[in-house]
């Protein structure tokens, strides 16, 4: 029964995402909003691979997100005006940085781990800010745009058509999410859950915990830097703020809001967070109070996130 439920849920979600550009205007949205939701949902899902499924909190994921943004932007602007090349470089840079940092920090736990991820994030932020001859500094990296992708037989005009961009982002999102889901269902994924539940016991069972955390970190940062490259394409802009700790905080909030323990939780969290913030900030300049109240209510009454409520209802 539950397997059928899950398959139905997956199918419904897939259907909604595939047809989004066609119904989103009717509900007062716009396609670019949907693209933004997907990019941030990918980032939040990647973070949740580490947070919800391995039990490790990172507050510095925006660093690798931001490296993806800059990697893509700098490539398209200075090296080779090609979207796929930009994406590849962005992902490579973000993942490489994550690999190096990961080796250094994997010994730490808890709040210390979270704070040291902030520290490294701030260092990258500072570099992006300072190196303004290359990155544009505080003014950001501008003067470039996403390049239509030529596939030989046709050209995908992601520059002119926001629907085309949406579907490119959707494809990347679905592939990434499928890979992460497959990893979580594998023995590796099961081990991560064991580490999350009781690290000491896992260690006693002979599981190399540090190595598993590093691998989880790597997977998580790989996909978050991919999300970063997509963000660069969406905005046609790279900005040091993309690397800051409050950007990281947004990812964490989306994961918790939607439900850390469930796979689609971060997607739902991203939908709620982005749409709500977009909508509420158009209605009132006091939107911060509403969003703040939302966090408070979620933490106090829905700690398992929105999906946690639904889960509890179907269970009883």
């Amino acid at each position, binding site marked *: 029964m539950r397997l059928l439920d899950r398959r139905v849920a997956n199918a419904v979600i897939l259907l909604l995402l595939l047809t989004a550009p066609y119904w989103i205007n009717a509900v007062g949205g716009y396609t670019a909003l949907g693209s933004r939701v997907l990019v941030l949902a990918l980032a939040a899902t990647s973070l949740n691979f580490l947070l919800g499924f391995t039990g490790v909190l990172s507050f510095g994921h925006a660093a690798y997100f931001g490296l993806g943004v800059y990697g893509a932007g700098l490539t398209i602007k200075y090296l080779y005006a090609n979207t796929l090349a930009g994406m590849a470089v962005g992902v490579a840079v973000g993942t490489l940085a994550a690999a190096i940092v990961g080796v250094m920090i994997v010994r730490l736990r808890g709040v*210390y781990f979270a704070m040291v991820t*902030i*520290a490294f994030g701030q*260092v990258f932020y500072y570099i992006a800010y300072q190196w303004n001859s290359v990155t544009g500094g505080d003014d950001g990296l501008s003067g470039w745009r996403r390049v239509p992708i030529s596939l030989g037989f046709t050209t995908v005009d992601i520059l002119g058509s926001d629907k085309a961009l949406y579907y490119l982002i959707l494809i990347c999102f679905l592939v990434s999410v499928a890979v992460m889901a497959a990893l979580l269902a594998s023995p590796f994924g099961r081990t991560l859950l064991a580490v999350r539940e009781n690290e000491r016991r896992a260690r006693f069972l002979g599981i190399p915990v540090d190595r598993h955390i590093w691998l989880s970190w790597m997977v998580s940062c790989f996909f978050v830097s991919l999300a970063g490259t997509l963000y660069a394409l969406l905005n046609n802009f790279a900005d040091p703020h993309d690397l800051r700790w409050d950007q990281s*905080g947004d990812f964490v909030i989306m994961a918790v809001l939607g439900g850390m323990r469930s796979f689609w939780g971060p997607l739902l969290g991203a939908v709620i967070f982005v749409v709500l913030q977009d909508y509420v900030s158009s209605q009132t300049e006091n939107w911060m109070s509403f969003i703040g109240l939302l966090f*408070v209510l979620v*933490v*106090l009454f829905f700690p398992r996130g929105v999906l946690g409520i639904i889960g509890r209802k179907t269970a009883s």
Partner: protein
Amino acid sequence: MTQLVLFNLFNGLIIGAFYALMALGLSLILNLSGVINFAHGGFLAIGGYLAYMLMPQIGFWGALAVAPILTALIGIAAERLFIRRVYGRDPLYSLLLTFGLAFMIEDGTRFIWGASTVPFAVPSYLSSSLSNEFFFLTGYRVFMVALVIAAVAALFLILGQTRLGMRIRAGTLDLETVSVLGINVRILRNVNFGLGIYLAGLAGVLAAGMLGLQPTIGSSLIMPSFVAIIVGGLGSLPGTLLGGLLIGAASGVVTVFYPSASEAVIYVMMALVLLVRPHGLLGEEGRF
């Protein structure tokens, strides 16, 4: 050059003392209740704004005395309404809860007092440099560090010599046993939170003298406070004090040689400390 370094070291220590004041409040709350209070900066802002409102009526010294107390009362109310519901849970929840509260406080202060920076004037006898020999100090900074020393001394006195302090210290080590021994842990946590917020309010009044008083005044000061706690080590108040002074001094000295890195250096320092000593300088194993 060495003279310049020494002057900056001195000033850095003074600013470090200010960070330590804020961080001590945070640390008190974290140690006893396991709550990461991201709204600390918001309470700092409230302290500053309350002082600004009270100053025309009761003068600067009156505002300095009263505003932190009022802020602490607001903190105690917040603890009763919101904070106490996340005790015992993963610190992530307290972080998100207080993050939400911080948003509400920032918006609230903007709603009440406007987005404009409001002019906060300290008495003129504080607001000038001391003399030509001590040109590198201002009267205000000397006053600030004196106040911080007094506050820290009072804090350690309370913790070391009073029954309340003893209960807080015991609770930091083993709250369950303290509860079993008949101490009302609820009230203890409440008062402890109030004490921490008092320090935030005091820091707010001091900050308003040196910085522009506007709704985001707390948000730029909260990160260095967290860094101070981590550098010093979680669970250790002397560690927090040391952490604050260290990052202030580092920032000051770095400004002599490479001024644009003066903010980044505290993060580099935190990363280095954690890589070498994963629990901070004076932190204990097993806490978080």
